[in-house]
């Protein structure tokens, strides 16, 4: 492998125990995140992308749990860490930016306290003054005046809060930042600024970013590579330009065609038939086959694996396997 891999997810399964039965919200997913890249993770809501993002930090509580898989981060498997060791990784090595900056900051805690608390949690020996200085430098780099550190979250605008969230993720120089729908609640202008900032920071700090979003446009703008999820499975992974120029999986094709285009050509938007399946009773075989325009016999029987279709471009679709392989799969 020529690329330097920071985070290697292997066969990850996250299960939710619900009142109606248990559900695999992430089902046997493997994915590599390369050092220094921005990887966009896209899919419709409910496809399991946020669950995947949380699972990378083992953040699940309550009814959700990781039932299978390995999480190789920077050379060690996070699944082998105990519950007491895990918090040392969170915040220090992997940071997270949440979807809604309005609700992701503690309303009764000052911004400064958010930062110094994080610093002190991981570096208890830091003096209060030093922590404060670090916090001030950090937020100024992100374009927030240091006086505003003494304010409460509700006194700040959405864009500013999202920058605070980033500063929290960067406070300890995390190697990987997971941004879960970071721009969904921001308006378009703020969103553009925020994405520029993300790009800058990635270059400046050598960050690796996993950008989870349902917005294809955002991915096209900042990501280096893109991973597409459908119904708890990974369906396509590849370089942004490759995937957008030549999507392999029929789902990705449909997804890209249904993105509104700014060109006022008046053509009607493509609408995919059907709706995503219930994860309680997912369809057998390829989960997309009931909606797929190219569905074949095998699609409803056997699940295709995620394999390279072209160099560094993976898709899980029977269209790209030759007949022999199909036969083998059917008999085996």
């Amino acid at each position, binding site marked *: 492998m020529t690329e330097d891999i920071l985070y290697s997810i292997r066969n990850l399964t996250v299960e939710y125990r619900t009142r109606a039965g248990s559900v695999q919200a992430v089902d046997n997913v493997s994915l590599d995140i390369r050092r220094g890249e921005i990887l966009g993770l896209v899919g419709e809501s*409910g496809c399991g992308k*946020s669950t995947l993002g949380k699972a990378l930090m083992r953040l699940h509580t309550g009814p959700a749990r990781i039932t299978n898989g390995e999480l190789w981060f920077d050379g060690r498997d996070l699944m082998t860490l105990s519950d007491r060791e895990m918090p040392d990784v969170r915040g220090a090595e992997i940071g997270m930016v949440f979807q809604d900056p309005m609700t992701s900051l503690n309303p009764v805690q000052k911004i400064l306290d958010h930062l110094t608390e994080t610093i002190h949690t991981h570096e208890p020996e830091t003096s209060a003054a030093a922590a404060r200085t670090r916090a001030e430098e950090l937020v100024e780099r992100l374009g927030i005046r240091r006086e505003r550190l003494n304010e409460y979250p509700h006194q700040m605008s959405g864009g500013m809060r999202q920058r605070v969230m980033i500063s929290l993720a960067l406070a300890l120089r995390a190697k990987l930042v997971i941004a879960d729908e970071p721009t969904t609640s921001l308006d378009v202008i703020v969103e553009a600024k925020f994405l520029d900032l993300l790009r800058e920071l990635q270059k400046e700090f050598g960050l690796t970013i996993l950008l989870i979003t349902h917005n294809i446009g955002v991915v096209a703008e900042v990501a280096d590579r893109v991973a597409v999820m459908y119904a708890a499975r990974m369906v396509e992974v590849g370089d942004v330009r490759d995937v957008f120029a030549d999507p392999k999986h029929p789902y990705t094709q449909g997804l890209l065609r249904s993105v509104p285009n700014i060109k006022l050509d008046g053509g009607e938007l493509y609408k995919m038939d059907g709706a995503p399946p219930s994860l*309680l009773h997912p369809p057998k075989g390829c989960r997309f086959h009931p909606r797929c325009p190219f569905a074949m016999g095998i699609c409803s029987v056997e699940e295709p694996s995620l394999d390279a279709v072209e160099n560094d471009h993976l898709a899980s679709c029977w269209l790209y396997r030759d007949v022999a392989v199909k036969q083998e799969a059917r008999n085996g």
Partner: protein
Amino acid sequence: MAKTKERPSEALPEGATWEVELKRIGFVRRILTARHWYGADWWFVTISTVAVVVFIIIALFPGLFAPYSPDALVGPSFLAPGASVDLPVLIVPQSSTVNKLQDLAVPESADRPTVAVEQGLPTAGALNEESQKIDEVIKNQPGGLRLRPIIDRYASLEETLQAVVDGKDKAAVVQTTEFNKVKAQFPTLREAAPVSGTAATAGGFLMGTNDIGQDVFSRLLWGTRIALIIGFSSSIISLLLGVPLGLLAGFAGGTFDRLLSLLMDSLYAFPGLILAIAITAVLGPSMFNIIVAISVLYIPTYYRIVRGQTLSVKEEVYIEAARSIGARQLEILRRYIFPNVIPSVAIIFSVNVADAILTGAGLSFLGLGLPPTLADWGIDVARGQRFIQTAWWMITFPGLAIMLVVLAFTLMGEGLMEIFNPKLRER
């Protein structure tokens, strides 16, 4: 000042489609599968429902379970629970055919039997009294038997009993407890029937007796009836007034709603017991007035819940839809709002019965409202307070009864609330 209530977000991942499937599960299956979803809460509901049914049965037929009438003076005063009654008992030689006092009766002409007693004890009096009673009955009967024993007095218990052993006297009359102390020394003697009192009361009382010798246990069982009558009737009255008012206010809105809500909120904020005290003070004491006083207190409980639910149901799209196709107001109320409100009202009712029983007990403890001789738990506890130094059982058992009944209704309501409508918990 946004006071947002975050709903649990951990429960399901975003945009989950299985929530819809959950709604399709039928009512009966929901209750059955609920056991797996809710664990402890399901058991709470089941156990407390059984308890509630038991209490209702006791309240309907207290006579079937209670050994005595609640007002009958059945034993000595202040008898501790389980303690046997200290009765004067007839002691005879093992070989004697005498089993009860009446067996000592002899024909008019025969020698009168002699009976040993200890000097200066009430046993002699009891013997005389009982003998005369029996004699009155048997002297007019055919056979001409008379019961007029001659009483021999001895200085000590031992001498008394020794006289029977030696055959000087046919029998002795001794207190049970006294006899039990020296039983081992007199193997040839045995205990026959008590001279006075019945064998049933001799066994003692499960929960003891009160200051005037009534059975605490029987009063407790009969008290269930009064507690449940107060609890149920006042809750039903509150419900019958609170629910329509809440529906009306929520549905009509406007000034009417604002004024009524203001009044209801004030009533809700005011300490209920104090208000009930005031109301019973004006109305004068009677069971009916207690019920009226308590039902006034709990109208706001129903009003607030029903009004809130009506408002939120009203906002929902299908009401808009119903209105737009020209459904009449009453029709909307009946078809859409009422069915949505009923489950919460049922749950509140259960908790409300518990509250009403507690308040009722508090009122009768204070001596307001009910006649002071009635077999009511609150009254019995108040009565026991005067004898707290001597008779712990007079306080303990009626209080426990209040607690258990209230607990059963509360748990049933709480458990149901948890299962059907978690939002209701913050009343």
